[in-house]
């Protein structure tokens, strides 16, 4: 991706190093958790200030304090030299602080345009000016490189990436002097990320400051100016140069240890490994067409492609969550009844879906219940659950995945985004699947936990599980998978062993013909 973005040129030059925001000694306590424990942050005009930290370090909480969504227990916030009290989102908005939240905060039943202008609809005498709303929304989306998103479409119908774009448009629709972006790239692919960076550069060139949060360190290098690192709710380093500070140093600051951010070595697949999952001629009109692949026991097949290329749909169809129009899915030679999740589950197929909040998590339930929900039978005799056994099993996994805060009885709702993702993953790790379908398993997961997850996936494969992996990070697909399927606009344009293909080739395949 870096090949496309030639310059760091527009950034920083000419804009004064004027201080825009200073947060000092911010403390925020939730019942039982001290999420922020004295955070300091200062942001200058026109800079991209990166916020780094492990899952649960307190980044999102800090952002929510800054946007008036949470009230801090202690600490001061100074904007433009004046101390301010941000006691409601409106107060923050009035000060020119806009945000793209980690969890998409859109209203599903309103249209794209209405969402963009939610709260400040152009109106005359209370009557919305629909034409103006639509035109301006279209302009904003075009500016983001997404003129194709229909502004009259109900937002709930857009895919996650589309929704993320709408969130961005909403942030831009306000005349903000500071825009906070909480993991905006998590649901975006490389092309989209390039687009995003272009927008960010435009903004900073106009003197707007951006706080950028991401777990992808290479993005920090590319777009960031200065870095603040949070650990356990406190600032451990601030004002680091985004381009000069060595990666190992950043990781050490974040995690307190040094981690080899590499993929574990690939085990060689025994030649006689039997084929577990066989997919032939799978189609769903206008989503994907004629997809066929097979996965052997112990093999990892990775799917690469742009957002919207239909990878998630393929996984969901294999799992029976969507009904195939044509084609067959066979597990161990037995054909699954299309459109039946039950059939897939019985055959030993598991799916860790893409949308953790809506498709996977029971937000109000305890962590351990979320982990064991697909394996309940194992902990039950005669229908009665053995809570101790459940918790023990869940504890082992959460420890292995470094879920924070530790303990399996918190409601999942209170976990940070990345930690929620780990819980979803833990559910399927607990289950002895024949086939495991993983859709974006590391979305929002921090560096440390990422390598744990890679190792776990590998271990599962080594134990004979057939794994299908979808990821928007090409290097992840290449690094983990034995074989790679590249998808573009609902078709498999390439299938082959992972070692025969490199990142550039994948990107070329992915982009071909789809360049805007």
């Amino acid at each position: 991706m870096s090949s496309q973005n030639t310059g760091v040129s527009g950034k920083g030059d000419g804009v004064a190093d004027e201080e825009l925001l200073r947060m000092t000694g911010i403390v925020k306590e939730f019942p039982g958790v001290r999420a922020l424990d004295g955070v300091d942050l200062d942001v200058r005009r026109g800079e991209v200030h990166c916020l780094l930290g492990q899952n649960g370090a307190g980044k999102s909480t800090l952002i929510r304090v800054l946007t008036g969504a949470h009230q801090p227990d202690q600490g001061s916030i100074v904007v433009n030299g004046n101390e301010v009290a941000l006691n409601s989102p409106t107060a923050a908005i009035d000060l020119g602080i806009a945000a793209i939240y980690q969890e998409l905060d859109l209203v599903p039943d309103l249209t794209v345009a209405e969402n963009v202008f939610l709260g400040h609809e152009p109106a005359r005498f209370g009557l919305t000016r629909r034409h103006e709303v639509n035109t301006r929304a279209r302009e904003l989306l075009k500016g983001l490189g997404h003129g194709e998103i229909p502004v009259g479409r109900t937002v709930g119908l857009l895919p996650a990436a589309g929704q993320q774009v709408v969130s961005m448009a909403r942030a831009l629709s306000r005349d903000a002097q500071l825009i906070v972006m909480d993991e905006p790239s998590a649901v975006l692919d490389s092309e989209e990320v390039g687009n995003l960076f272009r927008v960010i550069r435009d903004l900073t060139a106009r003197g707007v400051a951006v706080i950028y949060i991401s777990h992808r360190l290479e993005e920090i290098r590319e777009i960031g100016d200065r870095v603040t690192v949070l650990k356990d709710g406190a600032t451990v380093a601030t004002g680091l140069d985004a381009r000069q500070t060595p990666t190992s140093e950043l990781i050490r600051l974040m995690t307190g240890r040094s981690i080899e951010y590499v993929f574990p070595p690939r085990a060689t697949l025994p030649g006689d490994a039997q084929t577990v999952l066989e997919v032939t001629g799978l189609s769903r009109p206008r989503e994907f067409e004629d997809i066929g692949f097979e996965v052997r026991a112990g093999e990892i097949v990775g799917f690469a492609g742009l957002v919207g290329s239909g990878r998630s749909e393929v996984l969901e169809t294999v799992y029976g969550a969507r009904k195939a129009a044509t084609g067959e899915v066979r597990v161990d030679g037995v054909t699954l009844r299309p459109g039946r999740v039950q059939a897939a589950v019985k055959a030993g197929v598991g799916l860790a879906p893409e949308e953790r909040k809506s498709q996977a998590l029971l937000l109000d339930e305890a962590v351990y219940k979320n982990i064991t929900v697909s394996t309940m039978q194992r902990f039950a005799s005669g229908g009665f659950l053995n809570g101790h056994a459940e918790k023990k099993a869940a504890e082992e996994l959460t420890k292995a995945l470094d879920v924070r805060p530790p303990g399996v009885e918190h409601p999942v709702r209170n976990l940070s985004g990345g930690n929620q993702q780990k819980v979803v993953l833990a559910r399927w790790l607990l289950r002895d699947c024949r086939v495991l379908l993983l859709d974006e398993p590391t979305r929002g997961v921090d560096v440390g936990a990422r390598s744990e997850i890679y190792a776990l996936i590998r271990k599962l494969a080594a134990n004979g599980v057939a794994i299908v992996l979808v990821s928007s990070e090409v290097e992840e697909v290449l690094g983990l998978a034995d074989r790679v399927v590249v998808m573009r606009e609902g078709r498999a344009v390439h299938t082959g062993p992972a070692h025969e293909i490199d990142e550039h080739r994948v990107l070329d395949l992915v982009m071909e013909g789809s360049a805007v």
Partner: protein
Amino acid sequence: MMSEEVARPETATASGDKVQDAVPTTASTQSTTRQPGAPRNGGGALSILRTGMGRNVGLVVALVLLCIVGVITAGDTFATSANVLTILRLAAVVGVVSIGMTFVITGGGIDLSVGAMLALASVWATTLATQQMAADYGVIFMVSTALLVGAACGLVNGLLVAYGKVVPFIATLAMLAGARGLAEIISDRKTQIITVNPFLDFFGGSFLGVPVLVWMFVIVAALGWVLLNRTTFGRRTFAVGGNAEAARLAGIKVQRHTVALYVLAGLCCGIAAVMLMARTTTGSSTHGQLYELDAIAAVVIGGTLLSGGRGTIVGTVFGVLIFTTLNNVFTLNNLSISAQSVAKGLIIVIAVLLQQRLAARATTP
């Protein structure tokens, strides 16, 4: 369909198609009103009409079927203009209540106290004192008393829900008990007869051959439609009901808006009280019994999502009309009363199933 949607035809159709497949395999219990492929709130009057019809096609069909049954079984009486006006007059009171209810439900709440608020407003507006004032200074006194009482009760509901954080069901249940009790205390459980003739003459009269009550319903429904679909207030109602946290983060004053919604519902009950007062020439603590169920049923059958975030005034009007026509057809046909009850249950289910299947079909290309 809408101009905005032309930009990316594949996507538009893609999602439409998905729905079709999704329906049979899902376990959804709220899918009655979900037609993801349906274009919403498109530009231009024509497309509004068309999409409106598309979404409500099942309701239209149900209503038409009912009418056909009415014509066949009760021939000459059913299709007379007098009978149509009878149906509309009956629909008017519950109709106005239901419009208010549509707002509350769309905004993510529920109001069980509508019938009780109506009763209290009717009683308060017909006390001797108020009637004396009205006789002396004009009908406006009675009308505004009713509206104020309704709005005030709504305000209490709204404050309890928005600031007291009492779940809407419980807050309005308490209001139900409280308002009805208060109405009984004020009226001493006696039916209060209205003696202010200008009041009865005006609201009991007709304009252009159509009863004033029906006009009132039409006006409230029209205003409600504009408010819900064409104003920032309406947009915010969807936002608050669809995702309250997102609305809050977008700078909408969710609590204040919630209060406004309940006040609106109370106001509608006040209007309905005036209408019922005119119709019955009385105010009574027994007015409006079980209107909460009738109104919620009409709203939900019309396609408003009980969990909030999606609401339709047109659907609500159809819902009300279906129920009242049903009653009319039953009265005309001498069905045994118990059988009527059973038939009603069946017809409700059939109407919903129709609406579901037809709406899904109408909105899929």
